[in-house]
């Protein structure tokens, strides 16, 4: 029945899965943040949940794993780079490179030094 579906959707929206106490701790570890109203805390927690969902869905839709039904680190990194509101994540999202590529570029670098 349609009412059941609504209930499911609304119960999905209207409960909070993330631990509010942990969110409070993280907020307080931000510089200069002093006190937070309880309702404000609830809002932030829910917003964080929505963020996780948003990030996951956007990365999946945007990513290369759709055919194989998978989500990879680079899907997330790429999506963050391409989406303006996600640019705040660039600091924690170094694009990973293969170790051997790094070593190769390191070798090249050393070779250049040697020539010198």
């Amino acid at each position, binding site marked *: 029945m349609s009412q059941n579906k609504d209930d499911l959707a609304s119960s999905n*929206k*209207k*409960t*909070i*899965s*993330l*631990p509010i106490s*942990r*969110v409070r*701790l*993280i*907020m307080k*570890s*931000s*510089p*200069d*943040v*002093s*006190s*937070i*109203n309880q*309702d*404000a805390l*609830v*809002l*932030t927690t*829910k*917003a*964080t*949940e*929505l*963020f*996780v*969902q*948003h*990030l*996951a*869905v956007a990365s*999946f839709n945007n990513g290369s*794993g759709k055919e*194989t*039904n*998978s*989500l*990879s*680190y680079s*899907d*997330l*990194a790429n999506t*963050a780079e391409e989406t*303006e*509101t996600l640019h*705040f*994540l660039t*600091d*924690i*999202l170094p694009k*990973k490179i293969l170790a051997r590529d790094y070593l190769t570029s390191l070798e090249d670098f050393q070779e250049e030094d040697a020539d010198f």
Partner: protein
Amino acid sequence: MASSSGNDDDLTIPRAAINKMIKETLPNVRVANDARELVVNCCTEFIHLISSEANEICNKSDKKTISPEHVINALESLGFASYITEVKDVLQECKTVALKRRKASSRLENLGIPEEELLRQQQELFAKARQQQAELAQQEWLQMQQAAQQAQMAAASASAAQQAGSSQDEDEEDDI
């Protein structure tokens, strides 16, 4: 995993909670482990982002405590305005639930009936119960009595029958 150095910045949302959310949002999708770890860290980063922005907004206003309004404005200015409706809904729902819970407990305390009346009603109920028990006990006793009487009578008539048998013999002699 996270070192127990007690450093505030190592605080993250528990991995299990994130895994659960990812599973519910993207069912049947294989998510790489390092991707999950990344999401956990992104969460922390997001919370810092919102807190800082809301804090700035709060400082500009005359308030000392970050209010829901500040958070909502922060979401708006950071480009997450699309979250606002749902986030407000949840807040409303939480408040409604809290209100219902308070009402329910006060409803129990206050059925509109004063305490003495409640006490009186209780005593009435007790008295009724005692009476019923007494009646039941009496009935049982009566039944036992009747049963005993019947047993007695049965025994008496049995012995009477015996006597009757022997006195008949005597009678016959007298008639001659």
